[in-house]
């Protein structure tokens, strides 16, 4: 046994932990890329991404936008003739790129997920308006105006969340989270 594992083995291990079949089963048929609704927006299709991993091209994988463009629809997983959980691979790569702090800074996905996680730690439930400010200007002034008009519309229809709902046992909830990942400091 070599005492140093390559990138390919590292990613295979990630998938092993997620009960997926080994990436070694991939025969590069491209079914995952053909069914993926987000593939046109990826720099590497799911099939190509797996090939990059198999070729041990770690820098290219970590610079890719592919897994952060995955919407978790699991069509690839359902259709893979070799039983590879491709969507789970995408999750694994998202986590990997966050752990290593190595993702393309122009991507919105990593920041959104981090912000979402912190929001839930505060109240126990999601409060959509607290996520919005970071994104309203991302799609230009016109995009911002569209969002503002939609917000007003929702307000009139009584569908706009007005205040964050805090769960009753939030203190217990936060201590519970802290036992898994001590991210909250002493609470």
């Amino acid at each position: 046994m070599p005492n140093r594992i390559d990138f390919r083995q590292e990613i295979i291990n990630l998938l092993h932990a997620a009960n997926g079949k080994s990436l070694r089963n991939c025969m590069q048929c491209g079914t995952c890329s053909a069914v993926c609704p987000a593939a046109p927006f990826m720099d590497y299709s799911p099939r190509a991404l797996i090939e990059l991993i198999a070729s041990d091209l770690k820098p290219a994988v970590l610079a890719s936008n592919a897994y952060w463009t995955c919407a978790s629809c699991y069509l690839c997983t359902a259709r893979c003739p070799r039983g590879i959980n491709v969507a789970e691979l995408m999750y694994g790569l998202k986590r990997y790129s966050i752990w290593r702090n190595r993702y393309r800074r122009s991507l919105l996905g990593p920041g959104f997920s981090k912000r979402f996680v912190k929001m839930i730690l505060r109240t126990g439930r999601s409060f959509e308006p607290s996520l919005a400010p970071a994104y309203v200007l991302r799609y230009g002034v016109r995009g911002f105006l569209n969002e503002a008009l939609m917000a007003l519309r929702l307000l009139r229809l009584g569908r706009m969340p007005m205040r964050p709902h805090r769960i009753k046992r939030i203190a217990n909830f936060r201590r519970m989270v802290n036992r898994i990942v001590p991210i909250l400091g002493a609470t």
Partner: protein
Amino acid sequence: MKTYSYFPGCSLESLAESYHISALATARALGVELEVLDDWNCCGATAYFHIDELLAHTLCARNLAMAENTGHDLVAPCSGCFKNLYFTNAELKKDPDLAEHLNFALQEDNLTFQGTIAVRHLIDVFVNDVGLEEIKKRVTHPLKGLRVVPYYGCQLLRPRKDHEDLEQVTFFEDLLSAMGATPRMFPLKMHCCGASLIVTNRPAALMMLRNLLQCASAALAQVIATVCPLCQINLEFYQQQVNREFGTSFAMPVLYFTQLLGLALGIPPGQLGIGKEVIPATPVLSCIREEAVPTHS
């Protein structure tokens, strides 16, 4: 009357409140008791699984343990919540080490996961526990002539929960037929609405939505029926933006299956949250029984 523990999920508190009230109203009309789970927390959505799997499972485990204390199976109306709760339940049942680890955290809230209940989606409860025959019997206002496409979306079905068929699924069509509506062929019925890409990759999500709306239009649908708040919100709130982006002119109402079912059961529209749509559904709903079913397929 069969009783379930009910997990509304964050969206149903405001953006998808119509789903919440129509779910409770139709359940009552069908003799199903949905008891809202006390002090439930967010299921973690996809974001928690992007950051830390163990933490994501912990959030779900708290809800599961509280539901176990009620002694009833846990029902979720949101496909995302359903998928997360379902798989955490399944993982914890088959991995005692993982359960032990999470139970150590759950002690902080005086809870223990024991693996005594099942996790279900609301449409599954209606179709399989209440049953289509029973529903048909209770329909007093059949949605005659209303052309509906059943939008299953992704996570209700995928990834596969057990050994069920993922490709030739028809229970949603069958439910629409039981309501007296006309389900239309919808080839993209199990394709993605873009989910959170609507925030993190707007162009990709808009294209997926365009494809779905195009397909529903081509199917001559008057309404898209959904089983998930995220699908409903993406398809409805961003339809205008799709029109601007692609030069289309879609004006397709998007309702929850529980709103249509409620109408068929004779529940007044106001008690089903009808009237709170961004794209009003009332015009197409008012021509029920007046408009004939198109003869071509």
